[in-house]
């Protein structure tokens, strides 16, 4: 193999991470220095420009769901807000992480008191007497607790400072407190703290899905392939979904996917095709399995391995069919080969470069089929599986050699060798929380490329894809657990160093797709957002074709959804910032809406814990007696019982679109009216008319039109509800029942007083609207007299065609009087 004849200048300093007395020269091997220096012969022409125009443009603003949501509900689990202490931050310059054990403990004692206290109760049972009369026991150590329990009366509202505490309770809690609280809380507190710390660590970095659980298996025929991924609530079903790509590059899902039911959650899926033989390996928490994927798509099981301490990573050999490297939490790395079976290659419970408590281990292959890389959080080492145990060569070290920052750790190490390599098959990708490194195994410890990815979550997924064409750079996809994607363009090979061929770009993440979904009511909106924000646990891509440079990416979320997005290589040099941003197509929006409907139909996930609530169902039960009711009240009742939000659409009425309030067309100004009349010689008539209008009671002509619109909306709404006409006496039984239900129980039916009370708090402009609205309600049917219409109402021109209801114009007449009359 050729070796690059000129390496980038790099300072080499051995030492710990975050060394301050060494200049940070990592920029020397980042893209800024990606060019080969101009040769001495022709300095001016050699400089290759950095390809600024290299851009894979997404065809839509965000990824789209590929398959309908699975039938299992998904719960996002604990968040930082559940785990961390919220108080006291304001006094600190910099917030500090404090686990909220106290609250969690008290909640646990409250919610699962039986579990927490039952063992203690059993132990103390002989000292307590739960029932029976006041017979004096000879034993002075027995306490009678009948009255105590009576005082407790079930339970006390939690945390309520006004809860009644009897003398007995007080005495008991003072005496028994030290015993009861210490033993329980000490034991529980310790366990709980451990659990919370574990959850918090998991929230910061969930290493289980390192490498990703989604794989693309190309078929022999072009433009088809299989997606292999876990789904189901527990991610324990391995699906094989056939996908074909249309000529436009859109994926089409073919028939029902085949699946294999496993006994544990799938954490990692790896595939490799060597000598036309496709192999598939899967890592679960304590098991690894391998299949051979035959022609008809029927996978044949090859081997199942049990990993007692828990498996942290697997990889299939890119050189020899059926060889699998497995790492265990114990620090052991094994190689399974069809010829020799399982072979322990390396074992060291300690970490490589410096002491780090993480049991995470990783292994991959190298350009030599018998040399493996072994990685942990501190570095990556190359191990000869045939050599004497224990020796090896450090390939990467978290330290000054790679200008690592303080606290920097290896999160992913991946061998980038491919069957048809563009650059020599000796490159390894190493990702940390800050940067991405390319290391050549022939030049250990010195990264040949470093790029600060700046991802806001752990980069646990990476895929190197074949180039879009000859002499094109290879796309390298980097995926964060939070769903962020970055695409890097790597070129090089032969005698030149691998380098970034253009500035890296970010790709849309799943949360960017939120804009294509219709706006929902808050509860459902939250459900959708949570679903889209589910961590990304798998990344795969259908490689670009030579004919049409289209790249199809697939993302698997922890909720079991697969999202896909299409990227096109922009031809030529686009003008600066002038390409219009992609927009949603109507098909995409329709597709998302369908997906959303399916999602919302799923049963809600069973909540592990629910706040104690007062049952409103019991209150509602009383009213079930009244059977004879209309459809509308029934729907209202159902909605109340389910705690749903009620919209006009739910009541069976299409929401009448209220026309937006038109800008108030100012009544034509008097002067210009008069002038124009006068111009035409009718000045005198106009004056007379004006006089007459003023003397009549027509001066309210300036009443804003908006009110008319509002009231007509109400009227149309009421009319749609099929309520009987206001003017038809006597009231039907339906109305009485409706009225009875609307009245709060226990309140005398003097609507007048309540009406007036709340009317006082309403601004005067709104009062009329309110009154109009109230007038529409069937409640007023009780009031004697000629319905709501005041007899003295002169403005009959306000009466709408469909209704006799009259919104009362506000004017000089005393509104109070009418109000009394109306109600």
């Amino acid at each position, binding site marked *: *193999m050729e*070796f690059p004849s*000129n*390496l980038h*200048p790099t300072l*080499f300093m051995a030492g710990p991470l975050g060394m301050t*007395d*060494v*200049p940070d*020269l990592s920029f020397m091997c980042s893209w*800024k*220095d990606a060019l080969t*220096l*101009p040769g*001495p*012969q022709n*300095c001016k022409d050699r*400089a290759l420009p950095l390809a600024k125009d290299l851009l894979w443009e997404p065809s839509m603003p965000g990824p789209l769901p590929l398959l309908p949501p699975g039938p299992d509900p998904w719960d996002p689990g604990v968040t*930082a*807000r559940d785990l*961390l202490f*919220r108080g006291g931050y304001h006094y600190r*310059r*910099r*917030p500090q*992480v404090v686990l909220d054990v106290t609250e969690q403990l008290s909640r646990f004692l409250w919610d699962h008191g039986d579990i927490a206290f039952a063992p203690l109760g059993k132990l103390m049972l002989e000292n307590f007497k739960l029932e029976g009369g006041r017979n004096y026991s000879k034993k002075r150590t027995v306490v009678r607790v009948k009255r105590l329990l009576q005082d407790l009366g079930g339970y006390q509202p939690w945390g309520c400072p006004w809860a009644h505490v009897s003398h007995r309770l007080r005495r008991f809690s003072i005496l028994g407190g030290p015993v009861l609280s210490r033993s329980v809380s000490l034991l529980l507190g310790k366990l709980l703290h451990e659990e919370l*710390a574990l959850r918090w*660590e998991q*929230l*910061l*970095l969930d290493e289980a899905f390192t490498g990703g659980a989604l794989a693309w298996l190309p078929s022999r025929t072009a433009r088809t392939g299989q997606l292999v991924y876990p789904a189901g609530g527990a991610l324990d079903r391995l699906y094989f979904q056939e996908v074909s790509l249309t000529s436009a590059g859109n994926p089409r899902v073919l028939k029902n996917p085949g699946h294999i039911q496993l006994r544990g959650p799938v954490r990692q899926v790896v595939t490799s095709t060597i*000598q036309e033989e496709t192999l598939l390996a899967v890592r679960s928490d304590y098991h690894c399995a391998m299949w051979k994927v035959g022609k008809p798509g029927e996978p044949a099981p090859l081997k199942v391995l049990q990993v007692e301490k828990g498996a942290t990573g697997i990889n299939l050999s890119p*050189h*020899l*069919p059926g060889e699998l490297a497995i790492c265990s939490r114990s620090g052991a790395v094994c190689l399974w080969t069809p*010829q*020799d079976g399982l072979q322990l290659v390396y074992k060291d419970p300690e970490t490589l470069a410096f002491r*780090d*408590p*993480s049991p995470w281990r990783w292994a991959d292959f190298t*350009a*030599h*089929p*018998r040399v493996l890389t072994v990685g942990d*959080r501190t570095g990556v080492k190359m191990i000869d599986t*045939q050599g004497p145990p224990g020796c090896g060569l450090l390939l990467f070290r978290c330290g000054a050699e790679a200008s690592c920052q303080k*606290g*920097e750790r290896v999160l992913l190490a991946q061998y980038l060798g491919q069957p048809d*390599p563009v650059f020599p098959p000796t490159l390894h990708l190493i990702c940390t*929380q800050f940067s991405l490194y390319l290391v050549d195994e*022939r*030049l*250990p*410890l*010195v990264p040949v490329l470093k790029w600060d990815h700046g991802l*806001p979550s752990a980069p646990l997924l990476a895929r190197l894809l074949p180039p879009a064409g000859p002499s094109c750079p290879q796309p390298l996809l980097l995926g964060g657990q939070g769903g962020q994607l970055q695409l890097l363009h790597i070129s090089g090979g032969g005698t030149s160093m691998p380098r970034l061929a253009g*500035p890296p770009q*970010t790709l849309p993440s799943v949360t960017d797709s939120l804009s294509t979904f219709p706006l929902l009511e808050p509860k459902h909106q939250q459900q959708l957002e949570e679903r889209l924000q589910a961590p990304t646990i798998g990344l795969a891509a259908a490689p670009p074709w030579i004919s049409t440079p289209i790249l199809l990416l697939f993302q698997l979320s922890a909720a079991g959804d697969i999202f896909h997005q299409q990227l096109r290589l922009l031809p030529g040099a686009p003008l*600066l*910032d002038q390409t219009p941003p992609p927009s949603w197509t109507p098909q995409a929006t329709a597709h998302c809406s369908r997906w959303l409907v399916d999602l919302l139909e799923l049963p809600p996930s069973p909540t592990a814990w629910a706040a104690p609530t007062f049952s409103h169902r019991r209150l509602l039960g009383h009213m079930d007696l009244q059977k004879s009711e209309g459809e509308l009240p029934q729907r209202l009742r159902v909605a109340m019982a389910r705690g749903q939000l009620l919209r006009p659409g739910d009541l069976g009425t299409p929401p009448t679109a209220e026309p937006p309030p038109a800008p108030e067309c100012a009544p034509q100004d008097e002067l210009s009216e008069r002038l124009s009349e006068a111009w035409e010689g009718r000045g005198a008539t106009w004056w007379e008319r004006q006089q007459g209008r003023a003397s009549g009671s027509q001066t309210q002509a300036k009443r804003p039109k908006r009110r008319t619109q509002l009231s007509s909306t109400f009227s149309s709404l009421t009319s749609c509800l099929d309520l009987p006409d206001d003017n038809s006496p006597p009231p039907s039984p339906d109305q009485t029942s409706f009225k009875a239900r609307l009245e709060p129980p226990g309140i005398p039916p003097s609507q007048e007083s309540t009406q007036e009370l709340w009317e006082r708090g309403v601004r005067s402009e709104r009062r009329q609207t309110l009154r109009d609205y109230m007038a529409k309600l069937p409640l007023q049917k009780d009031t004697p007299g000629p319905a709501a219409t005041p007899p003295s109402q002169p403005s009959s021109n306000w009466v709408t065609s469909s209704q006799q209801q009259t919104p009362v114009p506000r004017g000089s007449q005393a509104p109070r009087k009418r109000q009394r009359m109306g109600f």
Partner: protein
Amino acid sequence: MPRRPSRRRCETDVSDFSEELRKPVTEDEQMETSMLSAKGMHFPWLQKQLETVVTGGKKKKDFAQTTRTCLSFIQDALLKHQWQQAAEYMHSYLQTLEDWDSYKKQAAPEISLQHALYLLHHGMLEEANRTLSQAETWRYGEKSSSQEILINLVQAYKGLLEYYAWSKKKMELSKIDEDDYAFTTKSRNMLSQSWKTSVNFCALIKTPGVWDLFVKSYVEMLEFYGDQDGAREVLTNYAYDEKFPSNPNAHIYLYNFLKREKAPRAKLISVLKILYDIVPSHTLMLEFHMLLRKSEKEEHRKLGLAVLFGVLDFAGCTKNITAWTYLAKYLKQILMVNHLSWVQEEWKSRKNWWPTFHFSHFWAKSDWKEDSDLACEKALVAGLLLGKGYRYFRYISKQDHEILRKKIKRMKKSVKKYSITNPVV
């Protein structure tokens, strides 16, 4: 679209400008934020998690926050290739740069160096030289060891620029007649320049690192003026100093120099032996094999076989026809002189994976289709190592090919005679 941070906000809140902004990552911050992980691991996304807990999702509005947001907008725009927008954000952000503290001022040569590199890569050599001269004279506070290295690097780059100029003159000189008057002046000029340049290179190439370009340029100048010893010393130090990373190029440069010098074979072998230990897949290994093969020492001839096997172990070399030809020829030669044990020793660690790696049925078919010459060489090796019954050999020997017929026949004969699977008589 990200919201643009308001400029007014930035201006009015300068008094809030807190210390933590000036030092982006302070030590106590790291200690606190990584406290609960108990691993010393730093999580860049921790701060955001904490902020959501503390503020309940509300946005903080202080100056530090605004500038941080602005920086993230710049990064975002850059990664989305929205150059125009990034430039606009950058404009808003620039004012914070005015307040860099002493820590950043010390990094000024670093920034100048980056700028110079940019200019260099874009062919603006004169401008680059000017920037480097500025960086060289920059002083802030006490000169630290970190600054010293940087200054060395800056000087080395200056030296590189001088080398370019020198090598241009060398080109011109080669066109002028030696007796010309201009020749003497020019060569005198070059001499003074090379002396200056060597001073520039010297300091840096003693610092551990990868300095391929500088070393190469320096050696070329030394060689031109006949300072062979100086050149050898530079290259030997570069290759053998233990503080330096194991850089294959250091050994390659030394080997090439020794070859130019017509050094004895033993010397060349000793240099390539080290390269063989570091990069057994290198193309020079075939040259190494030829050297070893011609050597009188049996030990060397044995190593010659190991070198060939070593090359063919690697994924990137499986289709190297020269290596296969050498191996086929050498295997036959070795077996002819009855060094069966040498072959067996090499074959022992490979016999359980080479058959699948090189000699599977798939490769037989595909090699024959793509490169029948390669297939023939491989088939001979397969036959010698695995016997005439092995699938690869069988497949190729059954092929009918007009030109290769003779070759295949010879191959069959060799396998029948020398295969290591043959029962020992």
